[in-house]
């Protein structure tokens, strides 16, 4: 049995290796995704432009404006003359909020700030930042754990690694299996003594090796580009990458066992693996801020398990026992999807 698995693995390895361009894309894909997007996806304010509508004519607010302009977050974008100019300024110019001062302004009156509700993340950040402007001195001290300087590049990293791994791993194995069926070469496999489980196992082996390469390249990238060191947890990190890749592959395999050709597989993988893992994993929206109905399910999908475990292993340097539940859940899910896919494949793999 093991011999047959190895034969199929060897066949698969050769067919990956001989298509040089696809192999190159396959290996560097996570590297490109994490390398480029890790520098781009920041959820912080940098040089947000604002305009001033001063109807009072006093210079009371010049210090405030220059203070805002001097900070990293905001930059001054010009004066407005009347309230009619506010809406066009939002639509046509690059203005993100407008500070408006009423015509007879006295000390103690309230300012009005117009923000753009269609840029939601930004308007929320602006609201938080401006409300805290006058009260810089909190009645409490603040300290941060696990990320003392509050480096913002650490925020998207677990999610990006997750996205890069999940989309590549889920597509590559299921594509190669589905391809045999669509091109009719599955009919040749029917002549061999190999059983369905052996075919799947044999095909998975080369792709497991590829996902280990992905884990290594992502590790090196985060070390040299973002300066994130994984000291004690290095073995745990690779175990996590491996288990997560297997879980993604098995989910992809499950989709492959339902659909017939590559187009349907691609659409299925993107709609039912990529989209849920982006939205439900806590990558863009924190898990706790979802509707309470969905939180238990959202915390079970592979993406959120990966992100939680990654934070635990890499950022918090916590021990294996704390993260064990994520590993166990990943293994259970892979097993479940594998069994269902195996059952479906046994019925429809050799049929064209």
């Amino acid at each position, binding site marked *: 049995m093991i011999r047959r698995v190895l034969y199929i693995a060897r066949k698969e390895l050769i067919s990956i290796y001989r298509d040089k361009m*696809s192999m190159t894309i396959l290996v560097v894909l996570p590297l490109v995704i994490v390398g480029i997007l890790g520098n781009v996806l920041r959820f912080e304010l940098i040089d947000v432009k604002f305009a001033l509508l001063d109807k009072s004519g006093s210079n009371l607010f010049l210090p405030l404006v220059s203070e805002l302009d001097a900070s990293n977050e905001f930059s001054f974008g010009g004066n407005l003359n009347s309230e009619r100019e506010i809406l066009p300024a939002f639509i046509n110019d690059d203005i993100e909020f407008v500070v408006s001062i009423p015509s007879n302004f006295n000390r103690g009156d309230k300012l009005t700030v117009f923000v753009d509700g269609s840029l939601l993340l930004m308007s929320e950040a602006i609201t938080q930042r401006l409300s805290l402007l006058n009260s810089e001195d909190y009645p*409490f001290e603040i300290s941060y754990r696990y990320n003392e300087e509050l480096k913002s590049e650490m925020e998207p990293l677990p999610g990006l690694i997750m996205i890069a791994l999940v989309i590549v791993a889920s597509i590559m194995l299921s594509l190669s299996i589905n391809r045999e069926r669509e091109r009719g070469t599955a009919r040749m496999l029917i002549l061999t003594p190999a059983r369905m489980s052996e075919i799947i196992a044999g095909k998975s082996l080369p792709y497991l090796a590829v996902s280990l390469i992905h884990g290594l390249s992502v590790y090196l990238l985060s070390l040299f580009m973002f300066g994130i060191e994984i000291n004690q947890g290095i073995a745990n990190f690779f175990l996590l990458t491996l288990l997560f890749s297997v879980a993604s592959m098995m989910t992809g395999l499950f989709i492959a066992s339902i659909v017939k050709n590559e187009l349907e597989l691609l659409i299925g993988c993107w709609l039912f693996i*990529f*989209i849920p893992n982006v939205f439900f994993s806590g990558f863009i*929206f924190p898990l706790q*801020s979802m509707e309470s*109905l969905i939180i238990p399910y959202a915390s079970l999908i592979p993406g959120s398990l990966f992100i939680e475990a990654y934070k635990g292993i890499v950022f918090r340097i916590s021990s294996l026992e704390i993260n064990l539940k994520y590993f166990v859940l990943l293994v259970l899910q892979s097993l479940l999807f594998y069994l269902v896919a195996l059952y479906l494949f046994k019925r429809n793999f050799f049929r064209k």
Partner: protein
Amino acid sequence: MRLLFATIRKEFFQLVRNKILMFLLLVCPLIVLGIIPLSFDGGYRIRAGICDASSDLESVDIAKRLSESAMFEEIFYYENLTSAERAMERGEIDMILLLSNNGHSIILDGTFPRRAMSSVYATSLEAFDNNDTQIVFQILFNAGRSHKHFYLVSLIILVITILGTALITLNIVNERESGVEEQFKATSMNRSIYLFGKFIFYTLLCLFLFFISYLFCYFVYNLQIEGSLFALFIVSLFFTFLLLGLGFLIALLSNTQLRAVYILTINLVLMIMLSTMFTHLSSMPYWAAVTRFANPVWYGVESARLVVLMGATLEEIAKNLLLLQQI
């Protein structure tokens, strides 16, 4: 002309007779639009741990105010700091509020900076009543600041991007790989008519998908379109052209479906994440913000937001997106 109609008819039957594909195209976008918005609630729901080392009544008052606040979901009480820290290490709480006689302090989990900033904001607002700022915030556009409506627009664009590019690319490459394209060379079919027929068919299909998505969102989530429907139609048409153009380009570059899938995957991930779907332009570095002019998804997201949420006219959209005012 007859040849063109014949091509369109061929594509139509090819699609309609494939039941799984029909299901994926017509039902699955609605499933996605029905389930995914559950993640857009946007409440704060901070889990706080309180470690009370002081003896006066003020700390009891603060703890009570936190537990009544809507911004805090769960409040845990800990005897000492070490047990609270252990809970944070397990990822069970987002912040620890340490109350003592000589000054309070909060300890935050820094692995999610955005959430840490929100926690500081919520604590100063709710627990310490620190709301004496002189600012009234007035929200223009999308006035209820509904998370659902904001991300629904992005989600529709996301789904159509995936479906549109995948359909056109793999359809062309599949026919090339299986030799159907070779056989067309022996017929009176002209290659340009053949591709043009596909283009028209998939444009109509994408517009139909737009139509059912917006209709679904209108009935289920009450998504009102602020701008005119004509503007929305033009914007969607323009976006569809960009998508299909991209699909043609990828199809030209790849001989096998395998390669097409990989090239498409890397392109889609980069384009989706580099568009302003999840982040805003101001927080991107300059080189990344500039790539938006070559990014169809950015045009799609921005123009749809301008029409649906801000109610901009076509002229304003053209100024905003095409005249490169924002460099």
